[in-house]
């Protein structure tokens, strides 16, 4: 038992996406705090992992105790503008299936939300949807 390694949790989440999107057809994926220059009229994915509120799960202070670590993965899917949502949703399904109710390496993913279309994309010039998945991990001290 040890304090949670947040980077290990992040690696579990991001690694799963990177592996999937490296497969055919490959889609560029960018994560937090990384420089990226998108190619116009092509698809790419942005994955942002955030840790949120944690809570006590059991008694015991710093030994023989458990915490619940809660987080959110927001995955934005950018695709060419003006050609309908089909291509975007194909990527969205790949991503949704990747996390939907999956338990991997001690990370419990909830039912995925989306892909949900956004009215204005950021960066502009793309059609953007979002898949959001809350997750939790149990820290055992």
């Amino acid at each position, binding site marked *: 038992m040890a304090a949670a390694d947040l980077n290990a949790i992040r690696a579990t989440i991001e690694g799963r996406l990177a592996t999937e999107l490296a497969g055919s057809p490959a889609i560029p994926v960018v994560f937090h705090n990384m420089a990226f220059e998108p190619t116009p009229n092509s698809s790419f994915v942005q994955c942002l992992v955030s840790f949120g509120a944690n809570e006590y*799960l*059991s*008694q015991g*202070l710093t030994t023989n105790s*458990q915490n619940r670590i809660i987080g959110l993965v927001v995955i934005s899917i950018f695709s060419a503008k003006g050609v309908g949502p089909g291509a975007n949703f194909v990527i969205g399904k790949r991503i949704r299936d990747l996390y939907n109710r999956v338990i991997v390496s001690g990370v419990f993913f909830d039912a995925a939300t989306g892909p949900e279309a956004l009215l204005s994309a950021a960066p502009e010039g793309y059609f953007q949807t979002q898949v959001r998945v809350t997750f939790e991990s149990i820290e055992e001290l």
Partner: protein
Amino acid sequence: MATIRGEQGAVQFDAAGSSNATIVGTRSWSLSTTKETLDTTKQGDTFRSFVGSMVSGSGTVELVYDPDATGQAAFLEDVITSADTADATFELFTTGTSADTDSAKFNGIITDMEITSTVGELVVVSCNFITSGTITLNLQ
């Protein structure tokens, strides 16, 4: 003055009553201690009077279920001990795990065990117990 939060608590238990060990994953515990009273009111009295009599206790321990957590299985499964001789020892701590400090200590019997699995929630277990014999309170 020092207030105490629930997460400082702990539960120790030993089914055989020889060496208490901390149960990992307890979420809460409660102990209710009751003293019976005997009515000593006599004819001619205006006000009713009582003396204290037998003391008994009961309570609940709630756990976040983990089949691998130290001490959980022995605790949960004590409910199926037939002809239970009440040899199991409990020590419920308000804070820390130092024996006979900030705790209630007693022998007891687990009378109910309820395990609940609900979509979207952690599996939790609730065990009710009654005390048997002396209840030692170290809550000062």
